[in-house]
């Protein structure tokens, strides 16, 4: 009856599973739970570490900055002394080499200008070098 000669034979090219794969869903659920658990654990463990690290870096930077500033201050004093002793042998670029911080540069520039002004007014000594302009 069902082996009729009119029956048409069609080859199956492709089979796609559209049915809901419960095993896959179970695996996905397990994976989700594991991921959430790991995220919570990582948050609990890493947050204090991260906070501690941030505080440590902040403290280090603060201390280092203070040290660097003090070092710059010392250098300014040293240069100041040198300038008044040597009557401005040092150029402004040499100030910049020692002082990268804007405040210090400003101070150094002011100092340099005052020395230059003094030189212009005729206070320069005969020990001037080629680094400074002879007015």
């Amino acid at each position: 009856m069902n082996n009729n000669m009119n029956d048409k034979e069609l080859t199956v090219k492709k089979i796609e599973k559209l049915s809901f794969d419960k095993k896959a869903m179970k695996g996905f659920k397990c994976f989700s739970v594991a991921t959430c658990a790991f995220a919570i654990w990582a948050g609990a463990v890493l947050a204090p570490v991260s906070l501690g690290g941030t505080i440590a870096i902040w403290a280090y930077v603060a201390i280092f900055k203070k040290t660097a500033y003090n070092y710059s201050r010392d250098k300014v004093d040293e240069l100041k002394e040198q300038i008044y002793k040597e009557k401005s042998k040092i150029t402004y670029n040499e100030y910049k080499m020692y002082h990268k911080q804007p405040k210090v540069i400003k101070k150094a520039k002011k100092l340099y200008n005052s020395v230059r002004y003094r030189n212009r007014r005729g206070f320069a000594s005969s020990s001037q070098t080629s680094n400074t302009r002879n007015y």
Partner: protein
Amino acid sequence: MDIDVNDKITLSDDISYLVVGKTIYDNKTYFFLVDFNNYANIKCCYENSLNHSVIVVDDKKLIQKLLPKFIDSQNKAYIDSLVESMDEN
């Protein structure tokens, strides 16, 4: 061949069908297929595992016999899935 209900199969006529029903009758596995793009295009066929093909049935009497079986199989599958989900919970 491992064709089950809710599978999408593409046959040599380049049409994709959804397997709506599956039943065993007279030692043959019959499928009830519905065209994805044209729901009016339905096919009743049985599996030919040797050639990896399906043979379309045109015999109206046979189809009339098979239709209630497809419905029963669907109901059974639905009840089985319900029982399974209850077991899981």
